[in-house]
């Protein structure tokens, strides 16, 4: 059993990336201290432990920092390998696939296209929405017949997609659009329910009304900036 040591998590109240780490720590039963940052006024701790990006989340374990949410998840899985659940499968092919889908969420299309649909209007927004639809089709196909993206057990790719469950309804409300629906996305919808049923995940969602307020303000800000510069 790995020496627990001191575990501190720097995040924000709403950070989706921080939420992934919260789920991993809670599911594995790892005690930790949580520090909610104000990113408009970054703490010395954050600047010291993530000097390259000054972003959250940052995990500090025994005084050493680990940055980037997916890197943190793998670190947690390796360091507390005795604590179930396993976040990555044992089989190398399945591990490669899990890493592939986790990366897909963040770096390739899923989140960036969501961002575009959310912060733009007109044709650019339409393109973002079309891109999201493409990505969701791929995810729907990948999920078919599986309980989780990781297979039988929840794993890193499921954590990476977690924002779909909590944030998409918020975006749908603000944009007045339907992004995920039961008809086009039966497997994704089923997966969302399954994720939400996990107590540790259910109890960790940031308050919805606060999220709506925050994201509506973000959208307004981006639209105002775009209109001002093109007007």
């Amino acid at each position, binding site marked *: 059993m790995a020496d627990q040591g001191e575990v501190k998590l720097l995040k924000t109240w709403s950070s989706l990336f921080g939420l992934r780490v919260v789920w991993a720590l809670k599911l594995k039963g790892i005690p930790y201290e949580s520090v909610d940052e104000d990113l408009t006024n970054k703490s010395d701790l954050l600047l010291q432990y993530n000097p390259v990006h000054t972003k959250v989340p940052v995990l500090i*374990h025994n005084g050493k920092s680990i940055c980037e949410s997916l*890197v943190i998840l*793998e670190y947690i899985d*390796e360091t507390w390998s005795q604590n179930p659940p396993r976040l990555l499968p044992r089989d190398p092919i399945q591990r*490669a696939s899990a890493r592939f889908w986790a990366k897909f969420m963040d770096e390739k299309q899923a989140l960036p296209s969501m961002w575009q649909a959310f912060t733009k209007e007109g044709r650019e927004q339409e393109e973002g929405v079309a891109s999201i639809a493409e990505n969701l089709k*791929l995810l729907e196909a990948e999920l078919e017949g599986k309980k989780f993206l990781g297979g039988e057990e929840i794993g890193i790719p499921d954590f990476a997609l977690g924002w779909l469950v909590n944030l998409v309804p918020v975006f749908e409300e603000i944009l007045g659009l339907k992004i995920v629906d039961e008809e086009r996305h039966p497997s994704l919808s089923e997966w969302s329910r399954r994720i939400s049923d996990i107590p540790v995940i259910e109890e960790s969602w940031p308050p919805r009304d606060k999220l709506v307020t925050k994201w509506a303000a973000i959208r307004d800000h981006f639209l105002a900036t775009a209109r001002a510069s093109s007007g």
Partner: protein
Amino acid sequence: MANNNNGDVKLIGAWPSPFVMRSRIAFNIKSVEYEFLEEKFGSKSELLLKSNPVHKKIPVLLHNDKPICESNIIVEYIDEVWSAGPSILPSDAHDRAVARFWAAYVDEKWFPNVRGALNASSEEAKNAAVGQLKEGMALLEGAYEEISKGKDFFGGEKIGFIDIAFGSMLAWLRALQVMLGGVKLLDEEKTPGLCKWADKFSADPAVKDVLPETDKIIEFAKLLVAKNKAAAASS
């Protein structure tokens, strides 16, 4: 290819791609033979489209016909499967996290500026990209000093994960320096550690037949830039 216990190992790629170079270097480190299926410039083979339907990009490793995609993920796979050979990822969990962090940094923050500098349509855009690249080089120099702990490589005495992730970029880095009229990214004064590292990395037996000559990359880059311009003009 008779590979005894290694199974059937194929790599779909192309010689100029730094991402493909990563897989090839990893295979060399592990002394694993593979069949190199080279894509033709400007077109994508049926096999590639079938093996990587999501991104349609190289490299793709086909191990006993099962595809593995994404260059850093492929290197981790190679390290895990051929565990008897010299290890690529460090053994300590925190060191591994640091290695993954910097490999991700190269791809997400540093490399896009290479593209940006090459394809820039204005002097301003080009200078901005070069500025970002130089900042990145300073960060990587710092990382090298800290992580190598006086040894030759990020991985210590032998090439490791960060060496492969960043070293695979060297041919393009050197080409860029020439194409941008002598811009110094590897700078004896500002990045002395990386200058020494670059030479050692390029000369390593696992690397030297994989990293192309700078001239060949410059030639290829011109073709690529022209192709990108044509595509942008027609869209």
